[in-house]
């Protein structure tokens, strides 16, 4: 309960847990007073364990912090920021050779993924374009992740811990396809209306 201060590699986190009362603020004040040199010129991230932080509490903490020289606030994090499954980013450009995207959720790419580029997602990967590079879905072990592309012709597809190589023959039609795990191996199917069965 209360306010906890912790040093990270490049910044300091102030963890706020539960109600912020006068007592907690006083405790923070004394802690900062005692370790002024630790805070000076520092970068601070405020983390709040709850859904949205009360403005009053935040302003009081900032008041305390602003008494120190050169301190910068990196941001305020609350737990209500969606994590994992509901989490996706949309990338509106073509990934070229040598470029790499990784994300702890789903990745949607509006553009191509060229050979030599890589996309690594903890969730699924959807490419609205040609997928010619490397795609690794479910990178943290989620075998239910899928890879979908309007033209699925990667050299390699990885889902969780399973790796599939491209067939040696050249595909002559580009049709939307979907790759998923079935019985410990990756299968590729034509994608038709009605979603994933």
């Amino acid at each position, binding site marked *: 309960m209360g306010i906890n201060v912790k040093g990270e590699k490049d910044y300091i986190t102030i963890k706020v847990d539960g109600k912020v009362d006068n007592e907690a603020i006083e405790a923070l004040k004394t802690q900062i007073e005692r370790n002024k040199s630790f805070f000076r010129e520092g970068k601070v991230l405020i983390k709040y364990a709850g859904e949205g932080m009360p403005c009053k509490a935040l302003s009081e903490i900032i008041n305390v912090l602003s008494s120190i020289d050169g301190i910068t606030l990196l941001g305020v994090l609350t737990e209500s920021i969606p994590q994992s499954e509901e989490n996706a980013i949309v990338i509106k450009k073509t*990934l*070229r050779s040598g470029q790499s995207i990784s994300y702890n959720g789903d990745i949607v790419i509006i553009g191509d993924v060229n050979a030599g580029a890589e996309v690594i997602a903890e969730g699924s990967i959807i490419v609205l374009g040609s997928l010619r590079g490397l795609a690794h879905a479910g990178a943290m072990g989620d075998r239910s992740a899928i890879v979908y592309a309007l033209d699925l012709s990667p050299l390699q597809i990885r889902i969780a811990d399973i790796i599939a190589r491209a067939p040696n023959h050249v595909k002559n039609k580009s049709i939307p396809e979907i790759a998923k795990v079935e019985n410990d191996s990756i299968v590729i199917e034509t994608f038709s209306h009605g979603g994933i069965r």
Partner: protein
Amino acid sequence: MGKVIVITSGKGGVGKTTAVANIGTALASLDQKVALVDADIGLRNLDVVLGLENRIVYDIVDVVEGRAKLKQALIKDKRFPSLCLLPAAQTRDKEAVSPEDMVRLCNNLREEFDFIIIDSPAGIERGFKNAVIPADMAIVVTTPEVSAVRDADRVIGLLEAMEKEDNKLIVNRVRSKLVDRGDMLSVEDVLEILSIDLIGVIPEDEHIIISTNRGEPLVNNNNAPAGRSFMDIARRILGEDVPMNMYTEKEDFFTRFRRLFKRR
């Protein structure tokens, strides 16, 4: 104010230097004042391709380090009075010039010339960055080979990361016969992967080998398909709307006749 164009590719041997020499001479023969800058320090070639090797006194590193004035180092091509070359140093390496030096140098050249064309070295390291940083426009050269296209893709990605927006593509050494047979990537295949604007297609042409060895640019030779294609590129750089032509060697009556029949 002149325009700075960098010609680059990632992969070596795809025809950057040939493109610089020929586009440069083509622009000069269209009455533009052109400066060619060889940024391939330590592996200079452009002077050889232009046939100006024996006239080098000072080079780009001499200018950057203050041993020579820019005017002293520029070599005027006697065949094309409005064409100048700033040669690279051969006894130094890429570290001898910094990106800031290149920007300053090109800004000075802009006042004198209509076009400054930089010959970028192969690779994506310091030399590449030096060559690209001052450019207003980048022309990426590739051949219809998977490896060259892959490298071109990488380079376009790096150009975009350096916030260079005006990027054009030359597909060099295209052999129509192989493409027709399906044994070579077509220009369309290359464009589908790279998805940037095409500024020219250069057919494979023996005249290039001869002209490179002799140090004589090709653009004034109307029999050379590659020379005509480079001239078209120069016109497009000047803003003219030139249709994409795939020039071929002039054929005698008999081969043309046979080809007509082949086409059904």
